[in-house]
């Protein structure tokens, strides 16, 4: 990873975002940026079209377990031309866990957003097909939230009957 290119890119982002760039962490070479929630769409457009971050690798959800801004969604972007990785964070509060989708910029956000929805219950507005991806639709909880017990809730997922005819 070329540090010079990285710093130039970060300078560009800083200029574009201005005040809305809330936090920047360069401790482990990959930049982690936190921006204001309302600017997410703007920032994505800028990153993709101007700075050439055309490859969305994954979307990470985390549960900070705080009363304010409980969830954090991290977009992991790669610029193949500049050989850079970038992590873009936004925070969402628990009462209204909704974010705009980024599937209109990166098609690969589709499953990743579904995964975050499945695990944390964060909904993505405008997503073409927002269903649970791993767990069945009948399951009512969000397992990666911190309060969910490791062993699950007994009876929340059904088991098959042990006789061939189910009566």
């Amino acid at each position, binding site marked *: *990873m070329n540090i010079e290119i990285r710093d130039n890119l970060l300078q560009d982002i800083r200029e574009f975002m201005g005040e809305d760039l809330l936090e920047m*962490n360069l*401790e*482990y070479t*990959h930049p*982690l940026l936190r921006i204001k929630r309302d600017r997410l769409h703007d920032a994505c457009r800028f990153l993709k079209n101007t700075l050439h971050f*055309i*490859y*969305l*690798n*994954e979307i*990470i959800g*985390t*549960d900070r377990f705080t009363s304010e801004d409980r969830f954090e969604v*991290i977009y*992991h972007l790669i610029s*193949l031309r500049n*050989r850079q*990785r970038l*992590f873009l964070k936004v925070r969402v509060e628990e009462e209204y866990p909704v974010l705009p989708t980024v599937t209109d910029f*990166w*098609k*690969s956000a*589709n*499953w990743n957003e579904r*995964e975050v929805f499945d*695990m944390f219950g964060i909904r993505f507005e405008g997503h073409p*097909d927002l*269903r*649970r*991806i*791993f*767990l*069945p*639709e*009948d399951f009512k*909880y969000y*397992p*990666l939230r911190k*309060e*969910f*017990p*490791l062993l699950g*809730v*007994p*009876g*929340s997922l*059904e*088991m*098959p*009957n042990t006789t061939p005819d*189910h*009566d």
Partner: protein
Amino acid sequence: MFQSDSNISRKKPTYFREHQEALYKSLEDKHATVEVDHSDPLATRMTLNMGPQHPATHGVLRVLMELDGEVITKCRLDTGYLHRGIEKMAENKTYQEFMPYTDRMDYLSPYSNNVALCLAVEKIANMEIPERATYIRMICCELSRISSHLLWLGTMIMDAGALSFFLWTFREREKLYDIFDEVAGHRFTVSHSRIGGVNNDFTPVAEEKIRKFIREFPDELKGWHKILDRNRIFVDRNNGVGAIGHVEGIAIGLAGPSLRATGIAYDIRTFEPYMLYDQMDFMVPTRTEGDNLARYYCRMEEMAESVRIIEQCFEKMPKKGPIRVDDAKKSYPSKDEVYYSMEGLIHDFMMTDTGICPPAGAECYHAIEAPKGELGFYIQSDGTGHPWRLKINSPSFSNLQGLETILDGEMVADTVVVIGGLDPVMGDSDK
């Protein structure tokens, strides 16, 4: 909040009705499987359900296809049949305790997964690894790459209709299993790479076995090339099947050999060299066609490159040296110390109890090039021995996502070949 349902045993199973309904709805279809159009029987639409128990889906993938004659017009994948919540388990384990779980993610190449986690934890905890350990890791990673590609080759060709290849590739795999058995003590769930180094050094027998394998393997590979490269049946079956361009490939986020087959030389070993790959001389095979045949060539050439890397590793590897960090706060002491000194025993105990504690609030990402593509671990630490959040970026997940797009417009009979060519492993993608 979480009330258990005591009536559950007396309820009739619904087979996750809501789930099925949502799935069919997303295909814009009712549950009907065939809709006969009487005016034109050839225009009959049909919904075909493949899996989750199907020999060609490499495990438990479920594919739902809407067919127009023999052409797939739309397809939806239903994954999660192996979802056990590995990320949740990670939050409840210390880093070392979690390490054996990585074996069971991509179970065709467990060693790469071990190394991926170890490197990520070492990065977040700022550890330096002895040189010999790094070389051992690299050799075993490349061996596991060969092993994974061998299984892909066998099953992919078996899906295309030739059973004998499966037997041949498995014969080679058995040799690799023997090597891992000698190196680590188990056939494939090795857990050999530990945080801070590796568990044990190569024995002379193991080293000899590896050298013998890399001497003989290229000939074997050549023989396979001879059989397949100009085999009419094989080429016709794969040429132009499941083709995808590089723009689309990036957009849907393909990973590993599938992305390289579209012409993009994205390989973490050169993109962001880890371990000592920057000192190695190797090539990243790419193709531009983006179809199944291109994927075949990429993987075959990768195997040859892996052999070259192993040879170089043996040349450059220091003959002796420590294989684990000598720091009781960061890694386990050796068994000698544990058995014969009080301090060693205490350290061992402390290590098991609290484990490695990266600085609070640290978060980092580290990726390696696993056989199937980029395998990354994103770790958030809260200063204790357990990760606060550990996210796995698995290559099979990215590749399977692409499958929905790739299958559009293909023939239904090509589904199995395309799945075989992408080489997804459900344990990896379902987390």
